[in-house]
């Protein structure tokens, strides 16, 4: 009994030792960095797997589930992305415009000014729901993932390009328009 287990133990130990020494010598070369969509992605079983990150990077698709990006010129400020967001990391404030501002690249008419379009990347869980609901496809996920900062507030990205003065002006325009409309209503 003891003899049998001893011999068994030695044999399995030798088997394990041969396995590790094969890996030891296979470590002379690194595994190639393949794109995830490559056919042979799972075929490589030998070689060093470590990717020395800042100097070496793994290839990733151009539109992957990473940081969000908003093409503000195409945004109609419909607020759907903020409503879809499960963690409420998108904060949008809009100002109504008396008349159509312009058209997005896909032809939708813009009637609202984006006074504020902030995305808190620290809260974002990268689910991608906002990109699905967007009617003009202006909010997208990019291939950027390396955004470490010293301050948490740096992770709140503001996509609105309007200055404070402009916001003030648009607000005044709208109040004026409202007032005029009100006056016209009273007059009639």
């Amino acid at each position: 009994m003891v003899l049998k287990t001893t011999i068994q133990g030695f044999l399995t130990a030798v088997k394990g030792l041969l396995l590790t020494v094969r890996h030891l010598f296979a470590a002379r070369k690194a595994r190639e960095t393949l794109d995830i969509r490559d056919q042979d992605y799972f075929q490589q079983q030998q070689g060093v797997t470590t990717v020395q990150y800042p100097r070496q990077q793994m290839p990733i698709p151009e539109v992957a589930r990473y940081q969000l990006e908003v093409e503000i010129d195409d945004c109609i400020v419909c607020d759907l992305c903020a409503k879809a967001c499960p963690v409420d990391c998108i904060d949008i404030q809009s100002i109504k415009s008396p008349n159509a501002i312009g058209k997005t690249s896909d032809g939708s008419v813009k009637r609202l000014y984006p006074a504020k379009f902030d995305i808190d990347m620290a809260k974002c869980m990268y689910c991608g729901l906002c990109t699905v609901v967007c009617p003009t496809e202006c909010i997208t996920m990019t291939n950027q993932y390396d955004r470490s900062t010293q301050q948490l507030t740096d992770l709140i990205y503001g996509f609105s390009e309007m200055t404070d003065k402009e916001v003030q002006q648009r607000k005044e325009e709208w109040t004026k328009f409202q007032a005029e409309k009100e006056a016209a209503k009273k007059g009639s």
Partner: protein
Amino acid sequence: MTDLIVHIIVPVAIFSFIAAFTLFAVYAERKIAGFVQDRLGPMETGKYGLVQTIADILKLLQKEFITPAAADKVLFAMAPVVIFVAVFIGFSVIPWAPDFIPADTHTGLFFIMAVVSIDAIGILMAGWGSNNKYSLLGAIRAIAQMVSYEIPVGLSLIAAVMITQTLNLNDIAYLQGIQSPEPIYFMGFWEVSHIGGIFAWHIFQAPHLLIVYVIFFIASLAECNRAPFDIPEAESELIGGFHTEYGGIKFAFLFLAEYAMMFLVAILGVVIFLGGWNSPLPNVGGLLLADWTTGLGWGLFWTILKSFTVVGVQMWIRWTLPRFRADQLMTLCWKVLIPAAFVCMAISGLWRIMIIL
């Protein structure tokens, strides 16, 4: 006066060698671990991470001495010294090259066995002095393991000594090469006194000595608390075992002792079983490879090369085999290694009688 200077220089030289070896071995260990697991190991500090261990030791040297409030201060402070000194003294009777030995004593092997056993007391001092349950558990495991494994180590050494008929490590190494004062037989039938090389090594002089070396190697792994017998340290269960509470330079000394012990058992195995300083290259006809590769420089080279190879195998085993359970450890020792060592000892006795006849 010259004697005094020599007596100072030799220990300093050996200490420097051990310190340098430890730095190198820790780096090698981490690299081997990395490569075995398809990683790279340290890569950031210096080219290929070469100065990583130097950075580590600089950090350890700068750290504050911290003694736990409830610790036994005397034992706690003395333990690393006792552990390291016990191992360090063992190097005093190890021959590095022909007649290149710090202390040429007739009882060298016995001396090593006696001195290295003190290591166990040092570990118990560390574990008890820390006043920490994990340290104490680790120390108790270490004592149980080291006392048990001293027996197969001793028996396997006796089996070899019965063939060599001397305890002087210098003489034992002489008996395994072309400079041997007595005729040597490969497996007992082929005289290789003038051929030398690998055939003259003790592991090939008698067939059972190969098994004796395997027993010695396994038991010596347990003696120096290396994986797969590292239950006294068992990072995943006991945090760090007996050295949980140690930090800074005290920890550095415990680490130094561990690697010095690895090297000591490796070089002891090399001297007794693997030909010591003798060249592995045999004389083949007109090619006197063994004669050409024997001498002081070559002796040092072969001893260190063989020892490093054995240390490499120890590391290879560490990163392959999982840790033994305490009962499996004792089963292996008492039910497998000790009976096997006794049988080999008996064969050694019979073998010696056959040789005399």
